[in-house]
């Protein structure tokens, strides 16, 4: 227990801390010009500026801007900024939809895979364009290489860069004083790619290839097994997809088995690295946000608040998964390794649980074990992660999502100390609170309402593979995964039906884009306000009391509202079994 669980976990979190610092500083530094940060960066960054930024990055970025006809010096107001992002996403959505619909006739299809049905193509386009990556299909069997690279891979980069681009604009708005200009979306978008997403994915991909992950355009390999039987082994350009899948909090696997598949995630070592990557892609944003708003400690408080909840969920999940399944107790099965159903032997229950909680605490949604087979407590922790809108959520959007709770905490906190509500010197008035209130009620609406419809209609119920409380978990998990833009599958639900493709696809789009619009409206409204200087009497957002307040608000307003619903799923199941 100690060497198998505690030591690796401590090492993991230490590594997470170190990389959060390094990548957070790096990300903060990367966009210092866009947001106008004059903060100090680690001295080693001078070399980065001298040998990487000036000779390599800037010329590349300038060339891209010239080719794309973008004038990097034009600053946009929120409407243009948001419209640019939405337009880009809309075009991508159409492109994806058409590729999936006609992939059979398109090149790079050595396995001769057919077209997707309209509903699956819709769900697929929706899910990839929104960084959700909920998969109602098996990648190796239903997507051609062209779809994997031309559609999925492209969307994985664009969706993450869209989130980052909007975050940069938001941060700019927060630091503006009575100035509605949020910068240039295309500049932030391109720089997200050239500085953050592409280089780090590249390093990850090289690492994966070195660990034996395939990167080839050849079709499936046909081999003769030791018994003399013939086996077809699916392969393809896995490494590149895997890298951005993890780094961009995407989560859509090349294979249906996702990161449980040995070609995606061959060893415990790759597992640890990928697990770190899936968290760091978004945690580093929180740290960088602190730099951008000129309060590194505030960034740390945000990381700390969310980490507190994630660690609690991890403990709950570990209690479940390491404890094993009581149903098997009398059957003479050795459960000393914990609940191993649906888990890979090379990872074991600890690494699978760590991954499971990591993936539902972000919008990654990639899996290295089958969540459907988790114990009730484990499943509960996964659901709770998503019920908090996936906590760290996704690249860029993670900070934006959390900010809604931060606004509420600032609002109530400021009142509690007798001050008019504000955040980082910006007043929070009824306009901003109104928008934040709508964002808050969106997640429960988009989860509970469709789940309610699904469990009382034939289309909804037919897909459930395991009726009762567990079946209810399957359905509510599907919509949690969609509405939190998480994308992980509980599996078990036969979700490739018109009903689930259309409902989940629509939920995904609404859950992604409505908050983005509202958040940019908040950005605009805050950008136009004065920044009030801080004093002794101002609510501090960089200390422990605020962290506690934020955690309480997130748990009570965000998490607990789902208790009645979740009681009918995993909690009922847990209490029935134990």
């Amino acid at each position, binding site marked *: 227990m100690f060497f198998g669980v505690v030591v690796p976990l401590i090492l993991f979190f230490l590594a997470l801390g170190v990389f959060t610092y390094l990548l957070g500083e790096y990300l903060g530094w990367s966009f210092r010009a866009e947001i106008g940060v004059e903060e100090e960066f680690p001295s080693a960054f001078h070399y980065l500026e001298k040998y990487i930024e000036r000779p390599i990055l800037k010329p590349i970025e300038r060339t891209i801007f010239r080719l794309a006809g973008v004038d990097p010096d034009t600053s946009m107001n929120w409407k243009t900024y948001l419209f640019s992002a939405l337009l880009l996403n809309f075009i991508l959505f159409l492109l994806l939809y058409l590729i999936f619909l006609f992939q059979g006739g398109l090149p790079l299809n050595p396995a001769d895979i057919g077209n997707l049905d309209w509903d699956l193509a819709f769900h697929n386009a929706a899910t990839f364009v929104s960084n959700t990556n909920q998969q109602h299909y098996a990648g190796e069997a239903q997507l051609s290489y062209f779809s994997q690279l031309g559609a999925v891979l492209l969307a994985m980069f664009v969706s993450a860069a869209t989130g980052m681009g909007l975050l940069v604009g938001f941060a700019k708005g927060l630091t503006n004083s009575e100035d509605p200009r949020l910068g240039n979306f295309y500049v932030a978008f391109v720089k997200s790619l050239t500085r953050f997403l592409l280089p780090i994915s590249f390093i990850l991909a090289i690492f994966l290839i070195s660990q034996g992950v395939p990167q080839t355009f050849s079709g499936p390999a046909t081999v003769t097994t030791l018994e003399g039987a013939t086996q077809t082994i699916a392969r393809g350009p896995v490494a590149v997809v895997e890298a951005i899948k993890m780094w961009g909090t995407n989560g859509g696997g090349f294979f249906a088995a996702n990161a449980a598949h040995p070609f995606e995630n061959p060893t415990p070592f790759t597992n640890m690295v990928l697990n770190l990557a899936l968290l760091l892609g978004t945690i580093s944003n929180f740290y960088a946000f602190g730099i951008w708003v000129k309060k590194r400690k505030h960034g740390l408080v945000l990381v700390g608040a969310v980490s507190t909840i994630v660690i609690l969920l991890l403990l709950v999940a570990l209690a479940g998964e390491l404890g094993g399944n009581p149903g098997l107790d009398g059957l003479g099965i050795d459960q000393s390794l914990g609940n191993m159903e649906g888990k890979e032997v090379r990872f074991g229950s600890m690494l699978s649980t760590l991954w499971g909680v990591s993936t539902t605490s972000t919008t990654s949604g990639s899996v290295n074990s089958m969540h459907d087979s988790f114990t009730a407590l484990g499943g509960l922790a996964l659901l709770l992660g998503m019920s908090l809108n996936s906590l760290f959520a996704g690249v860029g959007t993670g900070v934006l999502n959390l900010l809604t709770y931060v606004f509420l905490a600032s609002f109530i906190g400021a009142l*509690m*100390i007798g001050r008019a509500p504000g955040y980082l010197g910006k007043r929070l008035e009824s306009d901003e609170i109104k928008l934040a209130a709508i964002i808050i009620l969106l997640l429960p609406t988009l989860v509970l309402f469709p789940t309610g*419809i699904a469990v009382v209609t034939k289309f909804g119920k037919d897909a459930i593979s395991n009726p009762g409380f567990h079946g209810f978990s399957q359905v509510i998990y599907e919509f949690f995964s969609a509405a939190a833009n998480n994308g992980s599958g509980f599996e078990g639900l036969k979700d490739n039906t018109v009903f689930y493709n259309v409902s989940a696809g629509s939920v995904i789009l609404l859950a992604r884009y409505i908050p983005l619009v509202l958040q940019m409206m908040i950005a605009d409204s805050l950008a136009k306000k004065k920044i009030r200087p801080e004093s002794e009497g101002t609510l501090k957002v960089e200390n422990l009391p605020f962290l506690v307040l934020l955690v309480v608000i997130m748990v009570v307003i965000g998490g607990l509202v789902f208790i009645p619903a979740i009681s009918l799923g995993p909690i009922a199941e847990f209490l029935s079994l134990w």
Partner: protein
Amino acid sequence: MSREQVYQALVDAIKKLNPGYLIKNPVIFVTELSTVLIIAVTIAPQFFGGAQGRWYYSAISAVLVFTVVFATFAESLAEAQGEAHAESLRAMKEEVTGNRLREDKPLEEITEEDLEEVSSEEIEKGDLVYVEEGDMIPRDGSIVEGSASIDESAITGESEPVIRQSGGDKSSVTGGTEVLSDNLKIEITAAAGESFLDEMIGLVETASREKTPNEISLTLLLASFTFIYMLVVTTLTFFGNYVHLNVEVADQIALLIGLMPTTVGALLSAIRIAGMTRVTRDNVIAKSGKAVESAGDLDVLILDKTGTITTGERTATEFIPIGSSDNSSAAKAAFQSSFYDETTEGRSIVALAEHEGEEVSEDKLPEEGFTEFSAETGMSGIDLDDGTEIRKGSIDAIEEYADSVPGELDDKADEIADSGGTPLGLAVDGKVVGLIELQDELKTGIEERIAEIKKMGIKTVMCTGDNERTARYIAEQAGLDEYYAEFQPEEKIGLVEEEKAKGHMVGMTGDGTNDAPALAKADVGLAMNAGTAAAKEAGNMVDMDSDPTKLIEVVGIGKQLLMTRGSLTTFSIANDISRYFALVPALFSASIPALGKMNLMNLHSLQSVVISSLIYNSLIIPFLVPLAMRGVEYKPVSASQLLTRNLFLYGGSGLVVPFLSIKLIDMLLVAVGVF
């Protein structure tokens, strides 16, 4: 509060049940709708699939009716309290008559024939009235001619009479106050029903109707929570259908009421009204609720030195001989020059000299030889019968007057200025003999008040017409952050604008017409009632006591208003945690026995849990009314300490209290045999 007032409040509470009125408070509105629904269930349970006893539904209905009435009662009780204060003011308005001038005439020429006696209601804005000793001033106005001493105790509670005179900053008079001596010609500046008394009464009424800006935000937030909880509860019907769980309408309503922030929803109006009433009780008229809220948020206070930091009365503290003269000759010169000087300074000089043993018989000091202070010469003094000229005045004036200026004069004068004093020079027959040190005393307790304000994170800025040295000394003594010396009132507007441009919320006091633009520009402009009509018009608050330090108290009241709101919201939200543990298992365990294990509180039964939870919900409202009306205690400590304290106090109790109360009520209900 009298029995009738409570009775009246109860009647108002019932009137407020009108859904058209309640819709402004979404949480309580939904509670009312739920009540109507549960009453329908009681009447016809079969339509709602109600399978439990009618008595159970009746009990829920009854508790819910009480919940809604408690909510409206909290509001009307606060209103009644405010009204009671307004009522006592209104009493003063009655039965005042005034002498209206038929035509404008100089004051001394006015005779009985020029006057017509009319009731105060008949007097119109712009009319001229005449008042003399013993008269009540019929309505607010501005003195056109004359000066008089006036008893304003009816309005301010201050028994010391005040002097009001035409021109300048002390020309305005308030209706309902009494003239103690002399006579005045007054131009009425307020129309009937628009006097300050009316305004004060009006404020109580406005405050009870209009929400303040961040109350609106909070209401929006609570509305969105309410929407979420409604969704959570209604979708249970669908979910229950799948997992074979039957949650009745009545129980769903119980869950909804338990989850909704009814406590803070019920108390929001009471908090606001009580906050406004606290302001009026302090004899301050706030022209809007927003102004009171802003007061809590001020982070820069611009304070006048004189009257706010210091008493404004300069008194002599020391005589300093210059050149060959000794202490007693300086004291003597000071005494003689000031003997007929009726100003505070003059009297204090005489007092100090007498204290030092100076006495001169009056006949040696001819009154006709006295020269009053004039701005031209900057001096006052006396010419004795033997032709000796004694003069006292500002250093510049004395230097000009004197035949020769001793070198030590400037040094000693600077020393006095450095210690915050004002030096006056003394000369006898053109020869400088000494200096008088005048000190403007700090108001008692002002250092502590300033220290408190600084702890709140508020910057204090002092403005004074005094020279740099005096200003610095006073600022240091009082512990102020910044000061502006040799400052003209006209410059205040610039200062306010500058601070506002930096993003600060600025509060200031003022009484003169030249303060008016700055008062209007400031976030909180507290005008003095004794000041000019223009100043009172411009400010968004008026202090009836004309005490500039009141600004500090108003800041405290504003903060209390916001804190009470925040703390009760936190309490209300924290309450939810217990509901999930009490209600959810109870509601589900009938159909899903396994969920009974979540019943950590070991409550008796589903019905007892529902009733206990609802009773708690309803009783907590009247229980917290006193807190809402009194306001959360405010301590001047740093923001972080305050947050920790209130989070612990109100969040912590919000977590624990319902667990204990629900368990207790449950046990009680079982003990008395209800279950």
